[in-house]
């Protein structure tokens, strides 16, 4: 973990309340899928933990939703502004545990960390299918980016304004993808449905309000099958068997 200053290259809205933030720094960046960065937002006491959607040789690409005052301030920042990040944080996904075919199941911004995972899986020669769920069509993000990688994308929206009407589990039932391992990130109830219905080994990226983000304040502890675990340091990614729904 280290503290580093990044410069905003772009910070653009890409979907309803959703921004794509490209950050550059002056040295190589090493971070894996499922890991996150903790951003100091000027004027706010605690940092904002945000998962990494893509890695550049000297930067990162993040997606964030404006959900409160801190992210609203972030959405107003412009190219050239700087942000101080802690990174890399957390324990991420395990692409190496996929035998040949991976299913990625994202809900809302859960599509973001799974995008970097898709690239890692493809680089390792695995086949990847993505099922992405959103509330409505104007919240859809990253679908074209997945398709540009050659990944088949199945969309579900709650209101039926795009793709399958209903939940990601409905889209999975319709698409019948082949997979030996799945990876999911999104709302807790969605991940619960995915983890308890899919008959394959899987991993889920959990979320909790964090203090330090780096494993020493014990603010984001989750009770798991093998005892208390820190979402920020032991996770955020956990095997589905570990999670007590």
């Amino acid at each position, binding site marked *: 973990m280290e*503290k580093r200053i990044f410069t905003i290259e772009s910070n653009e809205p890409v979907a309803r309340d959703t921004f794509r933030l490209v950050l550059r720094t002056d040295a190589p960046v090493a971070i894996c899928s499922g890991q996150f960065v903790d951003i100091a937002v000027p004027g706010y*006491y*605690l940092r904002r933990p945000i998962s990494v959607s893509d890695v550049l040789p000297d930067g990162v690409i993040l997606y964030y939703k404006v959900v409160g005052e801190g992210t609203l301030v972030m959405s107003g920042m412009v190219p050239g502004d700087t942000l101080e990040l802690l990174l890399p944080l957390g324990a991420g996904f395990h692409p190496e545990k996929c035998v040949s075919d991976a299913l990625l199941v994202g809900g809302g911004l859960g599509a973001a960390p799974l995008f970097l995972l898709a690239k890692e899986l493809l680089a390792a020669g695995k086949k990847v299918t993505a099922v992405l769920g959103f509330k409505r069509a104007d919240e859809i993000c990253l679908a074209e980016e997945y398709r540009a990688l050659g990944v088949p994308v199945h969309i579900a929206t709650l209101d039926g304004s795009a793709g399958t009407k209903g939940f990601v589990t409905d889209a999975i039932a319709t698409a019948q993808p082949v997979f030996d391992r799945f990876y999911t990130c999104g709302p807790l109830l969605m991940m619960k449905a995915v983890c308890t219905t899919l008959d394959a080994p899987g991993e889920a990226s959990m979320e909790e309000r*964090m*203090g330090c983000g780096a494993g020493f304040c014990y603010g984001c502890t989750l009770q798991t099958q093998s005892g208390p675990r820190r979402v920020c340091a032991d996770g955020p990614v956990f095997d589905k068997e570990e999670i007590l729904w």
Partner: protein
Amino acid sequence: MVKDLSVSLCGLRLRNPVIPASGTFGFGLELADSMDLNVLGGISLKGTTREARFGNPTPRIAECTAGLINSVGLQNPGIEALVSDKAPALRRIYGGVIIANISGYSVEEYAFNCARADACPAIDILEVNVSCPNVHGGGMAFGTDPQSAAAVTKAVKAVTRKPVFIKLSPNVTDIVSIARACEDAGADGITLINTLLGMRIDIKKRKPVIANKMGGFSGPAVFPLALRMVYQVAHACRIPVMGCGGVARAEDVLEMMMAGATAVQVGAENLRNPTACPEIIGALPALMERLGIDSLQEIIGIVA
């Protein structure tokens, strides 16, 4: 001129007065890969109870203006894990002063835990937490009344030869009477302050942000209050004080020391900046130069 940052605390020499506060630095081991721990004057370890505790339900953290509320609720692996695993492991990589922070639900539990910590050579100082606002039926209940604070002090002093600091709560009407009761009962020092009981409400959900409704508020917002209490206690007692509460900069360290603190703990700031302590220590010599201070020891309690 080379600046002397060292201070003497109950006969122990600290290379500098800066100590990460209990609960904001884990057991030190969590940060060993991120910094050189040996620049720290001391480390106060995570509060420990007799049995392992999961702590409170989440959310345990709420952001505030110039601070945060925490309701971790003394999540810890229990006293045996502290003395047989955590403290010895830290000692192997850290040469400074190791402070065990001890909690309990009864006078007997405090004494039991302190007796176990006394037998652990890795531990230099016992900091007895009678001020945790996040556990029911223990913690703060002992620190808000002079008699029960004295009873805990007496019981733990009877089972250890290590220096005993009592960590006090600011959630009281008369901090001086409680500090004096601890001193009279044999305490070797006082740490203050612990967090202030606070609350936030999510106005969209119409519910408290913290699962446990309330929690301990800390951060720069509490610094003037902490400084005032350090000043009052340092002037009313003969035993040394570790000042704690809202310290975020080298300037705050000097203020605390001028108010009477022999050592200074940094808490909430670590949560927003894991390298806050090394940065504060690094800034001290230049600040001392600017203010004409050669030795930190000489400014302790200099404000009458």
